[in-house]
């Protein structure tokens, strides 16, 4: 790698002298350790988040920096992303880490004087900036906001900076009405018709802008904390993991939404992989009898081997899902995934249970138009709960074995989804044994980590003795398992 010019020293001086002005510049801010150190630090941080980046890519990234120079930060960002990343999903990890290692300016702006700044004035300027959608101004306001309201400790910001505190004092989400009013006042020039229709879009547009501003504040606070505590520490902790690695059991609402959007791409990938596996499996072994019969015409020398032909059989799938509160996110995601894969199978039947089992295949098929409401609809329309609302595996398995066992045949693969937490009731192993006896294969996917199996009221290992149980904690694991376990 060739040595890169190090503009770090002069740039840092500038930031120290007039911090407010540094916010204006678009140039990359670097510290004394030099660009190379910065870059390798960035790469190390990305690796610790599970991105696979080899030294070859790092060298490419350095060459990219050399070609681009450090004058324009957005270009540096895009150039590094192009050289280091391989997938769009990695961008969600890359951007926050980049913010930490190549921050926009450093330190605290000079105007901070200890006194509480004028909250109303700042809100007023924020309204104007949001109405105009002025990105540069919004960035500057985010810095000012963290300056004014984010610091905690005895002196202003002596102990740290908090985005939560900034946002709860500034409350940008309450500005919607005022921004709208500002927009209306400014837009008198537009002809009536166009204004009348697009007006209804405005609230949503402004909500998105406000969310963007909140994100800026979070980034700014994170950057300042990183300066105080060391970038590496924060890079490891404060950057959210990408959605497909988030534990199903810990995922928040937004992450589940994001996962749901990933269902169709994932299903398409799995379908291609399944089709490839089927194609390969269709080239069967050599049919000796027919090869020898064919060899008679060539004097007993088997010139053309005949392959055993396979009867194309589409496998059947039965899904048995625990939809009780604790694991509902996992179950819903898997149901949607299987539904999206339904054309790969001759028959897919889905059963849901909490403490009673009921078929929900129909609900799921109709539910593809509104995946978000699926969980609520299953709980509302299917008979999955009896007298109480807590899950009971024993009773549910028993009911499934009694009433729906005809769904399971010798060509059926059964997937049971759940954490095997029986609430201290009887796990009813004979019922599961009965199901396993009829089905071709039974797999159990457990969203808890293996270390927690059979702790407390979990009967995981008891079930695992009867059927194959796999740990399935996030979407990535689920994708891998499905690709491996689905019948061909």
């Amino acid at each position, binding site marked *: 790698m060739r040595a890169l010019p190090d503009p770090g020293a002069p740039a840092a001086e500038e930031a120290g002298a007039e911090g407010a002005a540094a916010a204006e510049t678009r140039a990359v801010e670097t510290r004394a350790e030099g660009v190379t150190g910065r870059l390798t630090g960035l790469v190390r941080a990305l690796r610790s988040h599970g991105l*696979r980046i*080899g030294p*070859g*890519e790092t060298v*490419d990234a350095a*060459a*990219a920096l050399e*070609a*681009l120079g450090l004058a*324009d930060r*957005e*270009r540096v960002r*895009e*150039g590094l*992303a*192009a*050289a280091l*990343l*391989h*997938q*769009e999903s990695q*961008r969600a990890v890359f951007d926050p880490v980049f913010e930490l290692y190549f921050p926009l300016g450093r330190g605290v702006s000079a105007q901070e004087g200890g006194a509480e700044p004028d909250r109303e004035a700042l809100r007023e300027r924020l309204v104007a900036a949001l109405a105009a959608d002025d990105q540069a101004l919004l960035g500057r306001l985010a810095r000012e906001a963290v300056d004014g309201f984010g610091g905690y400790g005895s002196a202003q910001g002596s102990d740290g900076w908090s985005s939560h505190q900034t946002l709860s004092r500034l409350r940008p989400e309450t500005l919607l009405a005022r921004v709208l009013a500002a927009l209306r006042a400014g837009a008198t020039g*537009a*002809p009536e*018709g*166009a204004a*009348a*229709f*697009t007006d*209804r*879009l405005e609230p*949503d*547009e402004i909500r*998105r802008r406000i969310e963007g501003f909140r994100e800026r504040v979070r980034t700014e606070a994170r950057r300042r904390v990183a300066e105080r505590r060391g970038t590496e520490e924060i890079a490891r902790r404060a950057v959210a993991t990408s959605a497909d690695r988030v534990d199903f059991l810990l995922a928040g609402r937004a992450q589940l939404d994001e996962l749901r*959007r990933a269902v*169709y*791409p994932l299903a*398409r*990938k799995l379908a*291609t*992989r399944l089709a490839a596996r089927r194609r390969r499996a269709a080239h069967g072994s050599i049919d000796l009898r027919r090869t020898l019969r064919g060899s008679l015409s060539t004097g007993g020398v088997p010139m053309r081997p005949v392959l055993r032909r396979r009867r194309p059989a589409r496998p059947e799938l039965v899904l048995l899902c625990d939809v009780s509160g604790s694991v509902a996110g996992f179950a819903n995601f898997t149901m949607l995934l299987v539904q999206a894969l339904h054309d790969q199978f001759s028959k897919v039947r889905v059963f849901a249970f909490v403490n009673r089992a009921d078929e929900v295949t129909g609900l799921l098929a109709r539910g593809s*138009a509104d*995946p*978000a409401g699926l969980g609520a609809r299953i709980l509302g329309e299917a008979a999955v709960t009896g007298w109480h609302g807590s899950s009971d595996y024993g009773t549910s398995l028993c009911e499934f074995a009694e009433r729906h066992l005809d769904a399971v045949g010798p060509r059926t693969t059964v997937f049971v989804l759940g954490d095997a937490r029986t609430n201290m009731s009887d796990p009813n192993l004979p019922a599961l044994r009965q199901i396993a006896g009829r089905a071709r294969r039974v797999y159990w996917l457990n969203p808890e980590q293996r270390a927690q199996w059979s702790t407390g009221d979990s009967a995981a290992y008891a079930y695992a003795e009867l059927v194959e149980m796999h740990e399935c904690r996030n979407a990535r694991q689920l994708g891998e398992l499905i690709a491996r376990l689905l019948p061909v």
Partner: protein
Amino acid sequence: MTTGYFTSVDEVAVRLAEAGYLASPAVATTVFLADRLGKPLLVEGPAGVGKTELAKAVAQVAGARLIRLQCYEGVDESRALYEWNHAKQLLRITAGRDESWDETRTDIFSEEFLLSRPLLTAIRGTEPKVLLIDETDKADVEVEGLLLEVLSDFQVTVPELGTISAERRPFVVLTSNASRELSEALRRRCLFLHIGFPEEELERRIVRMRVPGLDEVLADAVVRVVGALRAMDLRKVPSVAETIDWARTLLALGVGTLDETVVRDSLGVVLKHQDDVLKAAAKLDLDAV
């Protein structure tokens, strides 16, 4: 190493714009880097955001010949790389009956009998070239292995002729719709660029450039409605291609302003599923469709 078509990021943006392709800063930066570092460019993104257009535009501004390899399931070496012209070889053997075997052998495996396919064409010759490998994800995994040699060293090995190295590197663009995960080895050899949906301002400029006759206020409204549609949870979100189609439709209909009736009647241009149309109509407060 470099292909040497551009000297700065700004130049990329300006020249692509002259060719009718408005590049976002990310696109301009990455194209410049691909040119400067001489590495292939892997472009991913939803359908209709201009992945293939980008390769065409680069070819146009660089004055280069565009060579396109369209991938599909089952594309193989003889379609992608080279093939011996067997019929011609047979004719040659029949024509030269009294020649010795050695003479014939050296002759029929010469350049004259080699049918060059896109990958080999892109490497031979000194004229500037842009190689577009379209929908790489549709090809089988084996083809990726074939691409590795071409993309990392820009050379092709033909057993009978030896290794053919590029005299002048082509500018390589691979596109993918991510219907299959491309192998890590292939990704490592490329610069990665994801083209998403453009920012509102950029999309407005794209619409103005592509549909020049459209009233500016109307173009604004179109872009904003499409932006709102993208924020909804739809099965197929409208892409830039759909925005342009819609703008063209409105122009052809002679619509002056966007109002409820117009949107209701022409929503089918932008949305391709009936579920989506119903959902969008509900969210946009249109009356019953």
